[in-house]
């Protein structure tokens, strides 16, 4: 985009007989639709998935060049959250693991580390293809089931106000949320997840003594 603007500004396009107009992109525009509708001649797509999507839906679009060879993804946080690593518990909230924003975490791996009462560290790691809220709920069901199997009781942070939503969810004193199904048998949620192919979970739980 920057390079295109520069070519336009320095007259390179004109030199080769091209009459180019660049229109702004961004979240408030839908230039992909404008391309399909013939209002634009070229569009810088997000990735090759969109090209596959066009074929799937019989939309006559053709990718002519891969200007970006890589598809960089970044996590953004607000400065006041002070999150610097994905491993921090608050990062799970920030990444939208429990959020309602389904556009977050398209394909992402989040590691969550929690302190247990017994002074052990429970490592949960799940790669999630969260596409829909239903999938996310299924994931939460599973995590809750795991907690029960392990005997529960996660230690809260020193300052209750700083506890993440994730930790609060795992708080044994907390009433279970009414809007989510509770699992009678630990592990049933996971099996259902796999059976229904709701989520792709690769979960590893390692219990090891915390270094004190």
């Amino acid at each position, binding site marked *: 985009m920057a390079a295109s603007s520069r070519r336009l500004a320095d007259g390179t396009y004109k030199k080769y007989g091209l009459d180019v107009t660049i229109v*702004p992109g961004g979240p408030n525009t839908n230039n992909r639709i404008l391309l399909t509708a013939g209002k634009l001649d070229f569009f810088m797509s997000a990735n090759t998935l969109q090209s596959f999507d066009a074929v799937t839906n019989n939309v006559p679009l053709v990718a002519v060049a891969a200007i970006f060879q*890589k598809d960089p993804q970044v996590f953004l946080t607000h400065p006041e959250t002070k999150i610097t690593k994905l491993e921090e518990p608050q990062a799970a909230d920030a990444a939208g693991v429990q959020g309602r924003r389904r556009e977050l975490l398209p394909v992402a791996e989040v590691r969550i580390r929690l302190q247990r009462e017994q002074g052990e560290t429970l490592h949960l790691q799940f790669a999630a293809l969260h596409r829909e809220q239903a999938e996310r709920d299924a994931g939460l069901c599973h995590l809750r089931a795991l907690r029960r199997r392990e005997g529960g009781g996660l230690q809260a942070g020193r300052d209750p106000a700083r506890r993440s939503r994730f930790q609060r969810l795992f708080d044994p004193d907390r009433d279970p949320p009414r809007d989510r199904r509770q699992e009678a048998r630990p592990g049933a949620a996971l099996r259902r997840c796999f059976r229904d192919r709701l989520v792709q979970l690769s979960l590893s739980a390692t219990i090891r003594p915390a270094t004190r």
Partner: protein
Amino acid sequence: MIKKMNPEMTDELLGYSVAKMKEYGIVDSGDTLRDGIGAMTDARVASFFDKMVRAGVVRRDIDYRQAYTLRFVNKGVGLDLRPKN
């Protein structure tokens, strides 16, 4: 020009973006080193398609080869403009 379209964009931010893109080889790395900017190969698209099918994102039965053409790329465009270092 970008600054005119997006007043929030500063020279500093633009410079940062360009530096990061170069650092990570977003535009110029891998196949482009030999084939020029915009390089695409059948092998790489096939590999990506296969991965996405396995991840359940794309249907296996589509003719993914309709999604792209190599007609305009892999001609070594821009190789002569790369800084010699």
